[in-house]
């Protein structure tokens, strides 16, 4: 049995009653199973399927649609580096390369798959926009947000990730409160306002 009794109870007593159909409890159930085991294997598909009256193949099919559900074992910690435009413009390629180098992984493999260190401690992969672009380049470790982590910051980051945490922090622009305030003397540095655009 791979699902704990506590997880089964939670699925039956908490997740299933939330929705008018049993199947709808699938997403939270898969998350819970992954939290316990670190990944989702054939046993989980069978056990979750049994609880939700779904064929295991059906469960696996749904799980395989979503990149955050791991269908094989990954490292103890998962490091994901955003590679989308705002992070890219701010040097995320160097961040990714330096992280891979420091962990002895191949930064030039070019794919989007997960790479895991031989000791099983870390997995690394590029990821899509994490919706924290003001802190670009952004890194997510075990679903926690960190930024900005430039290539030159990587060694310090790997030594002490919490120093880079941005969880619960306001946007870069709102460090002094929510008001959008014109930057002092902005006119001096701005090009002349364009004429009528059209």
């Amino acid at each position, binding site marked *: 049995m791979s699902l704990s009794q506590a997880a089964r109870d939670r699925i039956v007593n908490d997740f299933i009653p939330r*929705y008018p159909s049993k199947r709808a409890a699938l*997403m939270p159930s898969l998350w819970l199973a992954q939290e316990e085991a670190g990944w989702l294997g054939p046993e989980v598909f069978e056990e979750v399927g049994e609880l939700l009256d779904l064929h295991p193949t059906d469960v696996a099919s749904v799980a395989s649609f979503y990149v955050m559900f791991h269908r094989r074992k990954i490292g103890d910690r998962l490091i994901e580096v955003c590679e*989308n435009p705002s992070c890219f*413009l701010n040097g995320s390629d160097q961040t990714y390369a330096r992280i891979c180098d420091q962990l002895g992984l191949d930064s030039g493999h070019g794919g989007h798959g997960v790479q895991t260190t031989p000791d099983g401690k870390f997995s690394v992969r590029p990821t899509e926009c994490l*919706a924290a672009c003001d802190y670009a380049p952004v890194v997510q470790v075990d679903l*926690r947000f960190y930024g900005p982590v430039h290539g030159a910051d990587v060694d310090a980051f790997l030594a002490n990730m919490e120093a880079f945490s941005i969880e619960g922090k306001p946007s870069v622009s709102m460090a*002094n409160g*929510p*008001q959008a305030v014109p*930057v002092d003397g902005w006119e001096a540095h701005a090009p002349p306002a364009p004429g009528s655009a059209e």
Partner: protein
Amino acid sequence: MTQTPPVADAPIQHGAGQPLPWEPVLMTAVGREGGRFLPDYLLRGGYQGLTKAVQEMDPDSVIKEISDSKLLGRGGAGFPTGVKWGGTKRNPGPRHLVVNADESEPGTYGNRYAIDADPHGLLEGMLVCCFAVGIQQAYIYIRGENLYGAEVLEHAIKEAYAAGYIGKNILGKEGFNVDISVTRGAGAYVCGEETALMESLEGRRAQPRIRPPFPIEVGGGLFGRPTVVNNVETLMCVPHILVRGAAWFASIGAPACPGPKLYTISGHVNRPGVYELPMGTTLYDLIYKYAGGMKRNQKVKAVSPGALACQLLPGTDLNVQMDTATLTRPPHWHPPFGPVGFGAGGIIVYGEETDIVQVVARAAGFFARESCGKCVPCREGTHWMQDVLSRIAHGHGRPRDLGILEDVTRNIGGRKTLCALGDFSVNSVASALRLFRPEFEAYCNGHARSSAAGSGVPVAAG
């Protein structure tokens, strides 16, 4: 609704009676001790919109107030919220509300900060919607990566249940019962598309549904029931509209699509971040006045005004008003691909240093990975674009590749697919080819730009 075109010496109006600088409406919790918790929300006037709705108004007058405010959905499509609520209500119950907190469009991040700052603002907007439309079960669908946001929401929901704002006979109103829960996605951009989102919530692969029936109709919504799908920011406007009135809201910013807007700006600007400003603020003001201008003082080369899904604007077009109405009609319309697009107001600014070919190659990779695979043009075309662009970006482009690219964009774009992801995937590619063709040609003729400073990408020479 007509709008005066922007001219240089007539800056946009910040709304009748609005003091300058602009007073934020949606983000007032930022910087307050305990701002995201219930006690502070109540100090800031929280749950007064809901109280007013329940005690002084009836459901239909709430819908009328939202319609009169001219609130347009902030999730991308810009659909009038009052119309959506009224339409859902005309269909028989049970009905559902789904909050779209999937926010995965590269360059868009207002929802994440809004949830972090003020989860009760969202819950109150949801409860008003449930009251107006007659809904007892509401779901928040949040992208899987945003675990912190899900935790913030779970906590706020607990607080609201304990205080009687969620649950049975809310605010003493007999029969006003609402349950709210959070469902986490697991990493699929297409889940932001409302019908894909509902598939995912129902425990399926997130592939968009064929419409009609539409979500507001029987058979088209969540669990086959009439469903309102609204974006986080849309719902956060709602309590303020009830408290301050539709006329106040309608007077803010662009007349055709008024209200406060959480613009998110990133890329090569000095002060990236969320800026709450009136809808219709110009791109020039956003970049220079608020976001502190460009890194290393470079010129603006191009802008994605509605994040990666929209077309690129040239750096000469900064006077454009940033709102749904302006960016979805001529001259910001390019047949056969349609409007430039405003999306959810995520602005990516590219300085002159940017190697646009590299950016577009990434965009193509993103959409190829995120296509759900249901429609042939999107499934196959996005991979074609990715292959060709990746070849070009690695310096192995051939002169005929640009023709192939253009062909592929025309075969995907122009509403040939089930959902808008297909159109999104061609927008940046087609507009970059239109605006920066010589750069693509240089790549294909063996003159790849060498590593562009600041773009951070070593370019393999061809």
